[in-house]
């Protein structure tokens, strides 16, 4: 990871100064928005395919199972290999995501046994693995990066603080050995525990131990005050690197296999027949979902992450019919949700509405005493913001939105009512019973419509010049007759039928 970060920073230093870069990265908001945005981009790209394959809840499944992977890998790292506990270590990410994929395979086996339905297998296996993970966390893990709160919401607000430092000039590493000027010593009783005596006992023997002897990186040396000249440092948040790598990986995968993914999503059988190996693609997709879920765990926890997979593609799906557009739109929706979500956590909705005002109004209305300062979980707010964007899309999408659907349906219903009446008149106007069937006063009874509805439709038909009233009976005009035939033709063509009326 380090060389990659260094290369990236050098690239960035061509554009901005070091101080500007540090200032940018040290702002909690910028780091959080950047990490959230990257999760959103990679999640949305993969989620679009999950959605189209009817596997949206599989991301839920995977995010639950990778928690168990993370916990086991974490326990292995800390307890067996005695490494420092770091949930953004590449090894942990790799191991945990393998666990996620393995568990997906296991549940597929469970419902293939035929005893449990697929939804029941999903609904059963994932809570179980999650439950085991939670028990392990609460029983055996004592680490701030992996407690129950972190499992739920992550620590995206602290992404800026967990950094790797890179030094570019005046780089002095300092090693303090016992003979160094700055070495500090402490006296410690060397045989107290052994003999079970107190240090004041006369048998106590003492040794001098150097308390600050170790190697110092330039950054550590500077903050410990060991250096004269300030080194040129850049502090780069680890989460950004991890998510950047994963996003690039996802992007490369989707671009390189776009054609194959498209075909195997649409028609796996054909893809198989053409030799595109849809099965292998499926598992690569699952591995990437697992990787992103593990990589995002630090930032957003293991439950909220599914929003990054599900919501943005769902919103994009309501906007367009084309896969390429969907893949283009959903990362934007996700990233917008992440960026505006940070403001929401700090109490601002799109910078237009302040939540504090809302709470104040509530206090007045219900006579409560709630604190007006709104300072909430960043990751949850990002999810909520994505949900708000989804709601807006749902309401306003020109093609599939609620408003346009309501308008379109009303229009279609009007056309449909017209056609029902026209067909009825057409079918009966030359039969013996036409006096009964077509009498305007009784017409509504044949359709079981209300009188008002009938007269509304009749008025409309007369205004359109399709129908005349002749001696109290409804009769088609020539135009109306043509209309019936034209509609019948289109309707029956829809059923792949020859025209019957001719």
């Amino acid at each position, binding site marked *: 990871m380090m060389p990659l970060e260094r290369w990236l920073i050098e690239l960035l230093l061509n554009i901005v100064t070091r101080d500007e870069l540090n200032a940018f990265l040290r702002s909690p908001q910028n780091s959080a928005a950047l990490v959230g945005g990257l999760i959103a981009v990679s999640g949305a790209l993969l989620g679009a395919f999950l959605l189209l394959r*009817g596997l949206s809840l599989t991301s839920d499944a995977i995010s639950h199972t990778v928690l168990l992977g993370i916990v086991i890998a974490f326990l292995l790292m800390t307890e067996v290999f005695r490494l420092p506990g770091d949930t953004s270590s590449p090894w942990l990410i790799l191991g945990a995501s393998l666990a996620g994929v393995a568990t997906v395979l296991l549940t597929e086996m469970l419902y293939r*046994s035929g*005893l449990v339905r697929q939804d029941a297998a999903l609904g059963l296996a994932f809570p179980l693995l*999650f439950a085991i993970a939670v028990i392990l966390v609460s029983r055996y893990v004592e680490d701030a990066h992996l407690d*129950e709160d972190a499992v739920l919401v992550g620590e995206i607000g602290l992404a800026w603080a967990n950094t790797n430092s890179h030094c570019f000039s005046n780089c002095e590493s300092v090693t303090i050995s016992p003979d160094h000027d700055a070495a500090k010593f402490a006296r410690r009783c060397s045989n107290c525990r052994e003999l079970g005596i107190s240090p004041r006992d006369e048998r106590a023997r003492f040794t001098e131990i150097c308390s600050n002897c170790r190697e110092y990186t330039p950054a550590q040396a500077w903050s410990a005050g060991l250096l004269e000249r300030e080194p040129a440092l850049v502090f780069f948040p680890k989460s950004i690197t991890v998510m950047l790598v994963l996003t690039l990986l996802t992007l490369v995968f989707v671009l390189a296999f776009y054609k194959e993914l498209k075909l195997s999503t649409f028609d796996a059988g054909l893809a198989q027949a053409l030799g595109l190996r849809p099965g292998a693609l499926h598992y690569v997709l699952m591995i990437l979902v697992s990787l992103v879920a593990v990589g995002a765990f630090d930032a957003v926890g293991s439950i*909220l992450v599914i929003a990054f997979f599900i919501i943005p593609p769902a919103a994009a799906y309501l906007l367009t019919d084309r896969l390429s557009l969907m893949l283009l739109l959903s990362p934007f929706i996700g990233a917008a949700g992440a960026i505006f979500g940070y403001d929401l956590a700090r109490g601002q909705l799109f910078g237009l509405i302040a939540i504090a005002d809302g709470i104040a109004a509530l206090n007045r209305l219900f006579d409560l005493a709630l604190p007006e300062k709104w300072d909430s979980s960043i990751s*949850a707010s990002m999810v909520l913001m994505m949900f708000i964007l989804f709601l807006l899309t*749902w309401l306003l999408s020109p093609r599939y939105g609620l408003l346009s659907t309501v308008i379109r349906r009303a229009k279609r219903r009007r056309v449909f009512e017209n056609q029902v009446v026209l067909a009825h008149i057409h079918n009966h106007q030359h039969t013996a019973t036409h006096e009964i069937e077509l009498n305007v006063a009784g017409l509504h009874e044949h359709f079981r419509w209300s009188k008002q509805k009938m007269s509304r439709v009749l008025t409309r038909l007369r205004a359109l010049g399709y129908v005349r009233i002749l001696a109290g009976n409804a009769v088609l005009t020539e135009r109306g007759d043509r209309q019936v035939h034209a509609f019948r033709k289109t309707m029956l063509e829809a059923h792949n039928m020859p025209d019957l009326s001719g």
Partner: protein
Amino acid sequence: MVARLTLSAADKRVWSIIGGIVLLGALFIPLSQLLFDMRFTYTVRVVALGGAVLGLLSGVLGSFAVLRQESLLGDALSHAALPGVAIAFLLAGRELSWLLIGAGIASWLGLRFLSAILHTTRLKQHTAMGIVLVAWFAAGIALLTYIQSIPDASQAGLDHFIFGQAAAIIESDVTLVSAVGIFVLLTVALLWKEFKLVAFDPEFAGANGYRIGLINALLSTLIVVAVVLGLQLAGVILMAGMLIAPGIAARQWTQSLDQMVILAAVFGAFAGAVGAVVSALDSDIPTGPMIIVVSFLLVLFSITLAPGRGLLWSRLRQRANRRRFAAINTLRDLYRYALSHGAEDYPAPDDFIRGVRASSIESGLRQLRAAGHIMEAGAGWRLTESGIAQARRDRRNQSLWDLYRLHGDELSLPAIQEDRQLDIAAVLPAAALELLESKLKPNESL
């Protein structure tokens, strides 16, 4: 008319399992005090009782969720309850009944929103459930984070609703839950017939004048009630598992809905009580996860060992079948070869018989030889007398089955399940068999 007064063997088995677990549950506390000298405090007993009541309720209603193929819906509903809990706390304070009402309303709104998405967009059910699940949950988390910033609110114990904390259950909670629970169970008992019909065949129910919409809505509401009541114990994230696991386990043991629901209730009560007690004794273990682990062990146990459906038995059955088929097929091959060469004891060369049926031949030959049906003859195999008799019986049985299929209707023989592996004489009444035998051609009869 066959009046069924005695219980079938399968029924007896299910009822004895139910009785056994109930007895074990009832005697759990006295027994463990007597045998292991464990002392349960009053608090632990209350917690155990609460866990049992909640487990029972979710077992009963979860069975219906499983049968309606709505296992994942429970997951969405329970996650969706969280913001309700938080808002109820903000408005009304820490009164359990208010918190539960809030949870119920939020969860119900989630359900409405879900069906609104499904009706007005082209999003599929999985996606829609995912959206409701995570959006409502995020709202809940955001509100809980806000609540933590309120002075004195941190002792409210709202985060117990996330993973469940049995130790927080007090006597008045158990009273409340039991009262609601009795009401729920009474409703299920009264509308048993309606729920069953609507779960099995809603279309037929509709044609029979039942108001399917109303009954479905009622059933969904009861499931929401069970989910909401269970939140304290299992928490929003894992409640779905506690809801469906007992039903899935119970389904393996029985073929009747009555027994399934009762068994699910017993399983649920068992898992709820054990999970609650373990977590009350060790405060490091949250209750919800513990209940899930116990429930899943029950499911695992049922899936492997339930008589009939269990994986273990079906594996064994498959193996036995494979063996039986190997023997009978080898016998038929040998007999056919012999007949085509003019004599029933004409030996078939070894490499021919291996060529016909490569995979199962070893097992077939071994079994036939052990039964004395064949013997080695040079580089081949010859049918012994008992082997010939066996082959003739088999051939005759197959011919009778053929005749049954051919003439069963015109002879108006009783309808039986066609299973050619069975001896037809064992499944067909003697009179009917005689009729069939009269149709046998002379050279096929003995």
